[in-house]
Protein backbone atom coordinates (compact mmCIF):
# COMPACT_ATOMS: atom_id res chain seq x y z
CA UNK A 1 0.00 0.00 0.00
CA UNK A 2 1.45 3.40 -0.95
CA UNK A 3 2.04 5.77 1.95
CA UNK A 4 1.66 8.89 -0.15
CA UNK A 5 -0.70 8.96 -3.11
CA UNK A 6 -1.19 12.23 -4.94
CA UNK A 7 -3.46 12.13 -7.94
CA UNK A 8 -3.85 15.17 -10.14
CA UNK A 9 -3.58 17.70 -7.36
CA UNK A 10 -3.57 21.38 -8.18
CA UNK A 11 -3.50 24.60 -6.24
CA UNK A 12 -4.48 28.00 -7.50
CA UNK A 13 -3.90 31.26 -5.66
CA UNK A 14 -6.29 33.52 -7.50
CA UNK A 15 -5.22 33.26 -11.13
CA UNK A 16 -1.75 31.95 -10.32
CA UNK A 17 -1.33 28.19 -10.57
CA UNK A 18 1.22 27.17 -7.94
CA UNK A 19 0.75 23.41 -8.35
CA UNK A 20 -0.53 22.02 -11.61
CA UNK A 21 -1.85 18.47 -11.94
CA UNK A 22 0.80 16.70 -9.88
CA UNK A 23 0.57 12.93 -9.37
CA UNK A 24 3.00 10.48 -7.80
CA UNK A 25 3.10 7.77 -5.18
CA UNK A 26 5.56 6.93 -2.44
CA UNK A 27 5.76 3.40 -1.11
CA UNK A 28 6.21 2.35 2.48
CA UNK A 29 9.81 2.53 3.67
CA UNK A 30 11.00 4.75 0.84
CA UNK A 31 13.41 7.63 1.28
CA UNK A 32 11.84 10.02 -1.19
CA UNK A 33 13.26 13.34 -2.32
CA UNK A 34 11.20 16.24 -3.60
CA UNK A 35 13.31 18.73 -5.48
CA UNK A 36 12.91 21.70 -7.74
CA UNK A 37 13.88 25.36 -8.07
CA UNK A 38 12.69 28.10 -5.71
CA UNK A 39 8.98 28.76 -6.06
CA UNK A 40 8.39 25.46 -7.84
CA UNK A 41 5.53 24.48 -5.53
CA UNK A 42 7.20 22.04 -3.14
CA UNK A 43 6.06 23.70 0.06
CA UNK A 44 2.62 24.31 -1.42
CA UNK A 45 2.29 20.59 -2.19
CA UNK A 46 3.35 19.67 1.33
CA UNK A 47 0.96 22.23 2.81
CA UNK A 48 -1.88 20.52 0.97
CA UNK A 49 -0.78 17.13 2.25
CA UNK A 50 -0.99 18.46 5.80
CA UNK A 51 -4.29 20.26 5.17
CA UNK A 52 -2.87 23.69 5.93
CA UNK A 53 -4.34 24.72 2.61
CA UNK A 54 -7.12 23.14 0.56
CA UNK A 55 -6.28 21.77 -2.84
CA UNK A 56 -8.06 23.27 -5.84
CA UNK A 57 -8.44 19.82 -7.35
CA UNK A 58 -7.26 16.25 -7.19
CA UNK A 59 -7.03 13.65 -4.46
CA UNK A 60 -4.55 13.16 -1.66
CA UNK A 61 -4.20 9.90 0.22
CA UNK A 62 -1.76 9.50 3.07
CA UNK A 63 -1.26 6.17 4.83
CA UNK A 64 -4.24 4.87 2.90
CA UNK A 65 -6.62 7.57 4.16
CA UNK A 66 -8.09 10.52 2.32
CA UNK A 67 -6.89 13.97 3.27
CA UNK A 68 -8.37 16.32 4.41
CA UNK A 69 -11.31 14.13 5.54
CA UNK A 70 -9.18 11.97 7.81
CA UNK A 71 -6.37 14.36 8.54
CA UNK A 72 -6.70 13.88 12.29
CA UNK A 73 -6.06 10.13 12.04
CA UNK A 74 -3.30 10.71 9.54
CA UNK A 75 -1.50 13.31 11.65
CA UNK A 76 -1.20 10.89 14.53
CA UNK A 77 1.21 9.00 12.28
CA UNK A 78 3.05 11.96 10.76
CA UNK A 79 6.08 13.92 11.85
CA UNK A 80 6.40 17.24 10.07
CA UNK A 81 9.29 19.69 9.92
CA UNK A 82 8.27 23.02 8.40
CA UNK A 83 10.76 24.98 6.31
CA UNK A 84 10.34 28.03 8.48
CA UNK A 85 10.49 26.84 12.09
CA UNK A 86 8.55 29.32 14.18
CA UNK A 87 7.33 27.54 17.27
CA UNK A 88 6.03 29.17 20.47
CA UNK A 89 8.95 31.45 21.39
CA UNK A 90 8.04 31.79 25.05
CA UNK A 91 8.14 28.04 25.71
CA UNK A 92 11.17 26.17 26.88
CA UNK A 93 12.44 23.45 24.58
CA UNK A 94 11.53 20.70 27.03
CA UNK A 95 7.98 22.13 27.32
CA UNK A 96 7.68 21.98 23.54
CA UNK A 97 8.60 18.30 23.65
CA UNK A 98 6.05 17.72 26.42
CA UNK A 99 3.29 19.52 24.54
CA UNK A 100 4.08 17.53 21.41
CA UNK A 101 3.79 14.26 23.31
CA UNK A 102 0.60 15.53 24.97
CA UNK A 103 -0.95 16.30 21.62
CA UNK A 104 -0.25 12.69 20.71
CA UNK A 105 -1.57 11.42 24.04
CA UNK A 106 1.80 9.83 24.68
CA UNK A 107 3.85 9.74 27.83
CA UNK A 108 7.15 9.78 26.07
CA UNK A 109 10.34 8.03 26.93
CA UNK A 110 12.73 10.31 28.79
CA UNK A 111 15.73 8.16 27.88
CA UNK A 112 14.90 8.53 24.20
CA UNK A 113 14.44 12.25 24.58
CA UNK A 114 17.77 12.52 26.31
CA UNK A 115 19.37 10.52 23.51
CA UNK A 116 18.04 12.95 20.90
CA UNK A 117 19.09 15.97 22.95
CA UNK A 118 22.62 14.60 23.28
CA UNK A 119 22.79 13.51 19.68
CA UNK A 120 21.67 16.87 18.32
CA UNK A 121 23.28 18.89 21.10
CA UNK A 122 20.08 20.55 22.24
CA UNK A 123 19.77 22.34 25.58
CA UNK A 124 16.19 21.56 26.70
CA UNK A 125 16.19 24.30 29.34
CA UNK A 126 16.49 27.13 26.83
CA UNK A 127 13.58 29.20 25.62
CA UNK A 128 12.72 28.36 22.04
CA UNK A 129 12.70 32.03 21.03
CA UNK A 130 16.32 32.43 22.15
CA UNK A 131 17.67 29.66 19.91
CA UNK A 132 19.66 30.16 16.73
CA UNK A 133 18.27 29.14 13.32
CA UNK A 134 19.97 25.75 13.28
CA UNK A 135 19.05 24.97 16.86
CA UNK A 136 15.41 25.78 16.14
CA UNK A 137 15.54 23.38 13.24
CA UNK A 138 16.93 20.66 15.50
CA UNK A 139 14.11 21.13 18.00
CA UNK A 140 11.62 20.83 15.14
CA UNK A 141 13.32 17.62 14.03
CA UNK A 142 13.06 16.09 17.50
CA UNK A 143 9.41 17.17 17.72
CA UNK A 144 8.83 15.32 14.43
CA UNK A 145 10.53 12.17 15.70
CA UNK A 146 9.53 11.64 19.34
CA UNK A 147 6.07 10.28 18.69
CA UNK A 148 7.39 7.49 16.41
CA UNK A 149 5.58 8.50 13.21
CA UNK A 150 5.05 6.19 10.23
CA UNK A 151 5.70 9.01 7.81
CA UNK A 152 8.14 11.88 8.23
CA UNK A 153 7.57 14.91 6.00
CA UNK A 154 10.35 17.46 6.00
CA UNK A 155 10.56 20.76 4.18
CA UNK A 156 14.24 21.65 3.77
CA UNK A 157 15.20 20.09 7.09
CA UNK A 158 18.93 20.52 6.75
CA UNK A 159 18.89 24.20 6.02
CA UNK A 160 21.02 25.75 8.80
CA UNK A 161 22.42 22.54 10.28
CA UNK A 162 26.15 22.20 10.87
CA UNK A 163 27.90 19.25 9.12
CA UNK A 164 28.16 17.11 12.26
CA UNK A 165 24.46 17.41 13.10
CA UNK A 166 23.64 16.95 9.43
CA UNK A 167 25.45 13.60 9.40
CA UNK A 168 23.80 12.52 12.65
CA UNK A 169 20.36 13.48 11.40
CA UNK A 170 20.71 11.33 8.32
CA UNK A 171 21.99 8.47 10.41
CA UNK A 172 18.83 8.68 12.50
CA UNK A 173 16.65 8.96 9.40
CA UNK A 174 18.37 5.98 7.80
CA UNK A 175 17.77 4.00 11.00
CA UNK A 176 14.11 4.98 10.92
CA UNK A 177 13.85 4.01 7.28
CA UNK A 178 15.26 0.59 8.04
CA UNK A 179 12.46 0.18 10.60
CA UNK A 180 9.93 0.78 7.81
CA UNK A 181 9.31 4.49 8.29
CA UNK A 182 8.68 6.45 5.09
CA UNK A 183 10.66 9.63 4.65
CA UNK A 184 9.64 12.43 2.32
CA UNK A 185 11.89 15.41 2.12
CA UNK A 186 12.27 18.49 0.02
CA UNK A 187 15.77 19.82 -0.27
CA UNK A 188 18.07 22.07 -2.21
CA UNK A 189 21.08 20.05 -1.17
CA UNK A 190 21.59 17.74 -4.15
CA UNK A 191 24.42 15.88 -2.47
CA UNK A 192 22.24 14.67 0.37
CA UNK A 193 19.45 13.77 -2.02
CA UNK A 194 21.90 11.74 -4.09
CA UNK A 195 23.38 10.05 -1.04
CA UNK A 196 20.18 9.10 0.73
CA UNK A 197 17.10 9.16 -1.48
CA UNK A 198 16.04 6.09 -3.39
CA UNK A 199 13.67 8.03 -5.61
CA UNK A 200 13.09 11.66 -6.38
CA UNK A 201 10.34 13.76 -7.87
CA UNK A 202 11.37 16.88 -9.71
CA UNK A 203 8.92 19.76 -9.90
CA UNK A 204 9.21 23.05 -11.72
CA UNK A 205 6.70 25.90 -12.08
CA UNK A 206 4.10 23.73 -10.39
CA UNK A 207 4.43 20.88 -12.88
CA UNK A 208 5.90 17.51 -12.12
CA UNK A 209 8.79 17.07 -14.54
CA UNK A 210 9.51 13.49 -13.61
CA UNK A 211 10.06 10.83 -10.99
CA UNK A 212 13.46 9.17 -11.08
CA UNK A 213 14.65 5.97 -9.49
CA UNK A 214 18.14 6.79 -8.32
CA UNK A 215 19.08 3.18 -7.67
CA UNK A 216 18.65 2.48 -11.38
CA UNK A 217 19.98 5.62 -12.91
CA UNK A 218 22.22 4.84 -15.82
CA UNK A 219 25.78 5.09 -14.57
CA UNK A 220 27.16 4.53 -18.10
CA UNK A 221 26.68 8.10 -19.09
CA UNK A 222 30.07 9.76 -19.55
CA UNK A 223 30.79 13.41 -19.53
CA UNK A 224 33.41 14.55 -22.01
CA UNK A 225 34.92 17.96 -21.71
CA UNK A 226 37.02 19.25 -24.58
CA UNK A 227 39.05 22.44 -24.88
CA UNK A 228 39.93 23.68 -28.34
CA UNK A 229 39.92 26.74 -30.55
CA UNK A 230 37.78 24.90 -33.08
CA UNK A 231 35.22 22.92 -31.11
CA UNK A 232 34.46 19.56 -32.78
CA UNK A 233 30.73 19.75 -32.15
CA UNK A 234 29.63 18.20 -35.44
CA UNK A 235 32.00 15.26 -35.16
CA UNK A 236 30.97 14.49 -31.62
CA UNK A 237 27.28 14.69 -32.44
CA UNK A 238 27.82 12.30 -35.27
CA UNK A 239 28.86 9.56 -32.83
CA UNK A 240 25.79 10.27 -30.66
CA UNK A 241 27.16 12.65 -28.02
CA UNK A 242 24.96 15.55 -26.99
CA UNK A 243 26.42 18.92 -26.28
CA UNK A 244 25.20 20.02 -22.85
CA UNK A 245 27.30 23.13 -22.40
CA UNK A 246 29.33 25.30 -24.70
CA UNK A 247 31.56 28.35 -24.30
CA UNK A 248 34.05 29.89 -26.74
CA UNK A 249 36.83 27.38 -26.20
CA UNK A 250 35.21 24.65 -24.18
CA UNK A 251 32.37 22.22 -24.74
CA UNK A 252 30.85 19.53 -22.62
CA UNK A 253 29.15 16.45 -24.03
CA UNK A 254 27.12 13.66 -22.55
CA UNK A 255 27.86 10.33 -24.16
CA UNK A 256 26.27 6.95 -23.73
CA UNK A 257 27.64 4.39 -26.14
CA UNK A 258 30.53 2.42 -27.36
CA UNK A 259 33.73 3.45 -25.62
CA UNK A 260 36.02 2.20 -28.42
CA UNK A 261 34.22 4.42 -30.88
CA UNK A 262 34.54 7.35 -28.49
CA UNK A 263 38.26 6.91 -28.01
CA UNK A 264 39.00 6.42 -31.70
CA UNK A 265 37.08 9.57 -32.50
CA UNK A 266 38.89 11.48 -29.78
CA UNK A 267 42.31 10.26 -30.93
CA UNK A 268 41.54 11.32 -34.50
CA UNK A 269 40.59 14.71 -33.17
CA UNK A 270 43.52 15.02 -30.78
CA UNK A 271 45.80 17.22 -32.96
CA UNK A 272 43.25 20.02 -32.88
CA UNK A 273 42.32 19.66 -29.14
CA UNK A 274 44.03 21.50 -26.30
CA UNK A 275 42.64 19.24 -23.58
CA UNK A 276 40.12 16.45 -23.12
CA UNK A 277 38.67 14.71 -20.05
CA UNK A 278 36.30 11.80 -19.82
CA UNK A 279 34.47 11.26 -16.53
CA UNK A 280 31.50 9.48 -15.06
CA UNK A 281 28.52 11.73 -14.88
CA UNK A 282 27.44 12.25 -11.31
CA UNK A 283 23.88 12.77 -10.26
CA UNK A 284 24.44 16.23 -9.00
CA UNK A 285 25.37 17.24 -12.49
CA UNK A 286 22.33 15.50 -13.87
CA UNK A 287 20.08 17.36 -11.44
CA UNK A 288 21.76 20.59 -12.30
CA UNK A 289 20.90 20.00 -15.92
CA UNK A 290 17.27 19.63 -14.91
CA UNK A 291 17.36 22.96 -13.11
CA UNK A 292 18.86 24.60 -16.18
CA UNK A 293 16.55 23.05 -18.72
CA UNK A 294 13.90 25.22 -20.27
CA UNK A 295 10.32 25.16 -19.19
CA UNK A 296 8.15 22.54 -20.81
CA UNK A 297 11.00 20.17 -21.60
CA UNK A 298 10.68 16.71 -20.21
CA UNK A 299 13.27 14.90 -18.16
Amino acid at each position, binding site marked *: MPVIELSHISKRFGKFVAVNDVSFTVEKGEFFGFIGPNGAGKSTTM*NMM*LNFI*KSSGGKIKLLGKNVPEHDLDV*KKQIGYVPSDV*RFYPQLRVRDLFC*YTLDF*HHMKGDSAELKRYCDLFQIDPQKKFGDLSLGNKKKVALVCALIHHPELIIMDEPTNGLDPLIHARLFRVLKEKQEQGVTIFLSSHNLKEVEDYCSRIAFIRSGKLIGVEDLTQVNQNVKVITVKADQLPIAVMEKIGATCVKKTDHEARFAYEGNMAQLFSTLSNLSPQLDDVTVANRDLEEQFMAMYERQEGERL
Partner: protein
Amino acid sequence: MTLFRLECKTHCKTLLIWMIVVGILTLGLVSLFPAMKDMGLDQMKAMPKDMMKAFNLSDLGMLTTIKGYFGYEYQYVMLATGIFAAMLGTNALSREESEGTISYLFSQPISRIAIVGEKMLANTVLYTLYWLVSMAIAYLVCLMFKETGASVSDLFDGFTQLTFAGWVMGLTFLSVGFLLSAFLSSNKSATSLSLGLVFLTFILGVVGKMNNDFKGLLYASPVDAALPSTIFKSGIEWNYIVIDLVVIVVAGLLTFWIYRRKDLNV
Protein backbone atom coordinates in the same frame (compact mmCIF):
# COMPACT_ATOMS: atom_id res chain seq x y z
CA MET B 1 -7.17 19.71 26.05
CA THR B 2 -3.49 20.33 25.42
CA LEU B 3 -4.17 23.48 23.45
CA PHE B 4 -6.45 24.70 26.23
CA ARG B 5 -3.56 24.49 28.68
CA LEU B 6 -1.13 26.02 26.23
CA GLU B 7 -3.48 28.93 25.60
CA CYS B 8 -4.03 29.58 29.31
CA LYS B 9 -0.31 29.50 29.93
CA THR B 10 0.36 31.89 27.05
CA HIS B 11 -2.09 34.46 28.38
CA CYS B 12 -1.66 34.23 32.12
CA LYS B 13 0.76 37.17 32.26
CA THR B 14 -1.49 39.42 30.18
CA LEU B 15 -4.41 38.44 32.36
CA LEU B 16 -2.55 39.33 35.54
CA ILE B 17 -1.49 42.71 34.15
CA TRP B 18 -5.04 43.60 33.15
CA MET B 19 -6.41 42.57 36.54
CA ILE B 20 -3.82 44.67 38.36
CA VAL B 21 -4.29 47.73 36.14
CA VAL B 22 -8.08 47.61 36.30
CA GLY B 23 -7.93 46.97 40.06
CA ILE B 24 -5.77 50.05 40.62
CA LEU B 25 -7.95 52.11 38.30
CA THR B 26 -11.06 51.10 40.22
CA LEU B 27 -9.44 51.89 43.53
CA GLY B 28 -8.36 55.29 42.22
CA LEU B 29 -11.81 56.18 40.87
CA VAL B 30 -13.77 55.06 43.90
CA SER B 31 -11.38 56.59 46.41
CA LEU B 32 -12.28 60.00 44.98
CA PHE B 33 -15.92 59.47 45.92
CA PRO B 34 -15.87 60.90 49.47
CA ALA B 35 -14.31 64.12 48.15
CA MET B 36 -16.59 64.32 45.08
CA LYS B 37 -19.74 63.77 47.11
CA ASP B 38 -19.24 67.00 49.06
CA MET B 39 -18.31 69.07 46.04
CA GLY B 40 -20.94 71.26 44.51
CA LEU B 41 -22.23 69.84 41.25
CA ASP B 42 -23.81 73.12 40.17
CA GLN B 43 -21.43 73.78 37.31
CA MET B 44 -22.38 70.50 35.75
CA LYS B 45 -26.04 71.43 35.78
CA ALA B 46 -25.23 73.99 33.10
CA MET B 47 -24.51 71.19 30.63
CA PRO B 48 -27.15 70.54 27.93
CA LYS B 49 -29.56 67.79 28.89
CA ASP B 50 -28.77 65.68 25.80
CA MET B 51 -25.11 65.81 26.53
CA MET B 52 -25.69 64.57 30.05
CA LYS B 53 -27.74 61.75 28.59
CA ALA B 54 -24.89 60.82 26.28
CA PHE B 55 -22.60 60.52 29.28
CA ASN B 56 -25.24 58.45 31.11
CA LEU B 57 -25.48 61.23 33.70
CA SER B 58 -29.12 62.22 33.58
CA ASP B 59 -29.60 62.30 37.33
CA LEU B 60 -26.91 64.36 39.03
CA GLY B 61 -28.33 63.64 42.46
CA MET B 62 -27.20 60.05 41.99
CA LEU B 63 -23.58 61.12 42.22
CA THR B 64 -23.91 61.68 45.96
CA THR B 65 -24.44 57.95 46.62
CA ILE B 66 -21.76 55.32 46.08
CA LYS B 67 -24.03 53.38 43.75
CA GLY B 68 -24.72 56.40 41.61
CA TYR B 69 -21.12 57.56 41.60
CA PHE B 70 -19.67 54.12 40.90
CA GLY B 71 -22.32 53.42 38.30
CA TYR B 72 -21.28 56.52 36.41
CA GLU B 73 -17.52 56.21 36.71
CA TYR B 74 -17.34 52.48 36.08
CA GLN B 75 -18.79 52.69 32.58
CA TYR B 76 -15.31 53.61 31.43
CA VAL B 77 -13.92 50.46 32.99
CA MET B 78 -16.71 48.61 31.19
CA LEU B 79 -15.34 49.99 27.93
CA ALA B 80 -11.85 48.83 28.87
CA THR B 81 -13.27 45.42 29.72
CA GLY B 82 -14.95 45.25 26.34
CA ILE B 83 -11.64 46.09 24.69
CA PHE B 84 -9.84 43.40 26.70
CA ALA B 85 -12.39 40.78 25.69
CA ALA B 86 -12.38 41.87 22.04
CA MET B 87 -8.59 41.72 21.96
CA LEU B 88 -8.52 38.22 23.41
CA GLY B 89 -10.87 37.19 20.62
CA THR B 90 -9.30 38.95 17.65
CA ASN B 91 -5.82 37.68 18.55
CA ALA B 92 -6.82 34.14 19.37
CA LEU B 93 -6.70 32.53 15.94
CA SER B 94 -4.91 35.18 13.90
CA ARG B 95 -1.84 35.28 16.12
CA GLU B 96 -0.99 31.65 15.38
CA GLU B 97 -0.77 32.53 11.72
CA SER B 98 1.14 35.79 12.01
CA GLU B 99 3.65 34.27 14.42
CA GLY B 100 3.88 31.11 12.31
CA THR B 101 3.15 28.88 15.29
CA ILE B 102 0.25 27.37 13.37
CA SER B 103 2.81 25.32 11.42
CA TYR B 104 3.62 23.55 14.69
CA LEU B 105 0.10 23.46 16.10
CA PHE B 106 -1.71 22.15 13.04
CA SER B 107 0.87 19.47 12.31
CA GLN B 108 -0.14 17.92 15.61
CA PRO B 109 -3.16 15.62 15.64
CA ILE B 110 -5.71 18.33 16.37
CA SER B 111 -8.68 19.21 14.20
CA ARG B 112 -9.56 22.73 13.21
CA ILE B 113 -12.78 22.41 15.18
CA ALA B 114 -10.76 21.51 18.26
CA ILE B 115 -8.41 24.44 17.71
CA VAL B 116 -11.33 26.87 17.66
CA GLY B 117 -13.18 25.09 20.46
CA GLU B 118 -10.29 24.83 22.87
CA LYS B 119 -9.26 28.40 22.18
CA MET B 120 -12.80 29.64 22.79
CA LEU B 121 -12.98 27.73 26.02
CA ALA B 122 -9.60 28.95 27.24
CA ASN B 123 -10.32 32.57 26.41
CA THR B 124 -13.76 32.39 27.98
CA VAL B 125 -12.21 31.06 31.17
CA LEU B 126 -9.53 33.78 31.10
CA TYR B 127 -12.07 36.51 30.55
CA THR B 128 -14.39 35.13 33.24
CA LEU B 129 -11.54 35.06 35.71
CA TYR B 130 -10.62 38.61 34.85
CA TRP B 131 -14.18 39.79 35.26
CA LEU B 132 -14.88 38.01 38.53
CA VAL B 133 -11.70 39.37 40.08
CA SER B 134 -12.40 42.88 38.78
CA MET B 135 -15.94 42.79 40.16
CA ALA B 136 -14.77 41.44 43.51
CA ILE B 137 -12.21 44.23 43.79
CA ALA B 138 -14.78 46.83 42.79
CA TYR B 139 -17.28 45.54 45.34
CA LEU B 140 -14.74 45.56 48.17
CA VAL B 141 -13.52 49.03 47.24
CA CYS B 142 -17.11 50.32 47.17
CA LEU B 143 -17.68 48.85 50.63
CA MET B 144 -14.60 50.69 51.84
CA PHE B 145 -15.63 54.09 50.54
CA LYS B 146 -19.43 53.97 50.71
CA GLU B 147 -21.32 56.82 52.35
CA THR B 148 -22.72 56.18 55.81
CA GLY B 149 -26.18 54.74 55.58
CA ALA B 150 -25.75 53.01 52.22
CA SER B 151 -27.28 49.54 52.28
CA VAL B 152 -24.77 46.74 51.89
CA SER B 153 -27.30 44.20 50.67
CA ASP B 154 -28.61 46.67 48.11
CA LEU B 155 -25.06 47.22 46.87
CA PHE B 156 -24.49 43.47 46.75
CA ASP B 157 -27.64 42.96 44.66
CA GLY B 158 -26.53 45.62 42.24
CA PHE B 159 -23.11 44.04 41.92
CA THR B 160 -24.50 40.56 41.31
CA GLN B 161 -26.57 41.87 38.42
CA LEU B 162 -23.70 43.92 37.06
CA THR B 163 -21.38 40.92 37.23
CA PHE B 164 -23.75 38.89 35.12
CA ALA B 165 -24.56 41.61 32.59
CA GLY B 166 -20.90 42.62 32.27
CA TRP B 167 -19.91 39.01 31.77
CA VAL B 168 -22.36 38.64 28.90
CA MET B 169 -21.15 41.92 27.41
CA GLY B 170 -17.53 40.71 27.44
CA LEU B 171 -18.47 37.36 25.95
CA THR B 172 -20.23 39.20 23.14
CA PHE B 173 -17.10 41.14 22.29
CA LEU B 174 -15.02 38.01 22.70
CA SER B 175 -17.10 36.02 20.24
CA VAL B 176 -17.31 38.81 17.67
CA GLY B 177 -13.52 39.14 18.08
CA PHE B 178 -13.16 35.42 17.39
CA LEU B 179 -15.20 35.78 14.23
CA LEU B 180 -12.89 38.57 13.01
CA SER B 181 -9.92 36.44 14.01
CA ALA B 182 -11.08 33.61 11.76
CA PHE B 183 -10.95 35.98 8.79
CA LEU B 184 -7.60 37.56 9.56
CA SER B 185 -4.35 35.91 8.59
CA SER B 186 -2.28 38.22 10.75
CA ASN B 187 -2.90 39.90 14.09
CA LYS B 188 -1.40 43.18 12.95
CA SER B 189 -4.78 44.85 12.83
CA ALA B 190 -6.21 42.97 15.83
CA THR B 191 -5.78 45.80 18.34
CA SER B 192 -7.21 48.51 16.12
CA LEU B 193 -10.12 46.27 15.17
CA SER B 194 -10.85 45.62 18.84
CA LEU B 195 -10.81 49.31 19.70
CA GLY B 196 -12.93 50.05 16.65
CA LEU B 197 -15.45 47.38 17.52
CA VAL B 198 -15.94 48.57 21.10
CA PHE B 199 -15.98 52.30 20.42
CA LEU B 200 -18.15 52.02 17.34
CA THR B 201 -20.85 50.06 19.11
CA PHE B 202 -20.57 52.39 22.10
CA ILE B 203 -21.08 55.43 19.87
CA LEU B 204 -24.08 53.74 18.25
CA GLY B 205 -25.48 53.49 21.78
CA VAL B 206 -24.82 57.18 22.41
CA VAL B 207 -26.63 58.12 19.20
CA GLY B 208 -29.50 55.88 20.22
CA LYS B 209 -29.79 57.67 23.54
CA MET B 210 -29.60 61.18 22.15
CA ASN B 211 -32.11 60.73 19.41
CA ASN B 212 -35.33 58.86 19.97
CA ASP B 213 -35.64 58.10 16.25
CA PHE B 214 -32.55 55.92 16.53
CA LYS B 215 -33.49 54.23 19.76
CA GLY B 216 -33.06 50.84 18.06
CA LEU B 217 -29.33 51.46 17.83
CA LEU B 218 -29.11 50.89 21.56
CA TYR B 219 -29.54 47.20 20.87
CA ALA B 220 -26.40 47.21 18.78
CA SER B 221 -24.37 48.35 21.76
CA PRO B 222 -23.31 45.57 24.13
CA VAL B 223 -21.84 48.11 26.55
CA ASP B 224 -25.31 49.60 26.99
CA ALA B 225 -26.63 46.21 27.98
CA ALA B 226 -24.28 46.30 30.94
CA LEU B 227 -24.23 49.99 31.81
CA PRO B 228 -23.66 50.06 35.58
CA SER B 229 -25.78 53.18 36.14
CA THR B 230 -28.80 51.63 34.38
CA ILE B 231 -28.37 48.29 36.07
CA PHE B 232 -28.09 49.82 39.52
CA LYS B 233 -31.19 51.92 38.87
CA SER B 234 -33.52 49.51 37.09
CA GLY B 235 -31.88 46.09 37.00
CA ILE B 236 -30.96 43.97 34.03
CA GLU B 237 -32.78 44.67 30.79
CA TRP B 238 -33.32 41.15 29.46
CA ASN B 239 -33.95 42.20 25.88
CA TYR B 240 -30.34 43.26 25.66
CA ILE B 241 -29.08 40.05 27.18
CA VAL B 242 -31.07 37.93 24.75
CA ILE B 243 -29.69 39.89 21.80
CA ASP B 244 -26.16 39.46 23.12
CA LEU B 245 -26.67 35.74 23.52
CA VAL B 246 -27.94 35.47 19.95
CA VAL B 247 -24.87 37.36 18.73
CA ILE B 248 -22.59 35.07 20.76
CA VAL B 249 -24.11 31.91 19.33
CA VAL B 250 -24.20 33.14 15.72
CA ALA B 251 -20.66 34.54 15.81
CA GLY B 252 -19.41 31.37 17.47
CA LEU B 253 -20.93 29.06 14.89
CA LEU B 254 -19.73 31.22 12.02
CA THR B 255 -16.21 31.13 13.44
CA PHE B 256 -16.16 27.33 13.32
CA TRP B 257 -17.63 27.33 9.85
CA ILE B 258 -15.12 29.80 8.42
CA TYR B 259 -12.07 28.40 10.15
CA ARG B 260 -12.77 24.92 8.84
CA ARG B 261 -12.65 26.13 5.27
CA LYS B 262 -9.80 28.53 5.57
CA ASP B 263 -6.37 28.30 3.91
CA LEU B 264 -3.93 28.68 6.78
CA ASN B 265 -1.10 31.03 6.05
CA VAL B 266 2.15 29.23 6.79
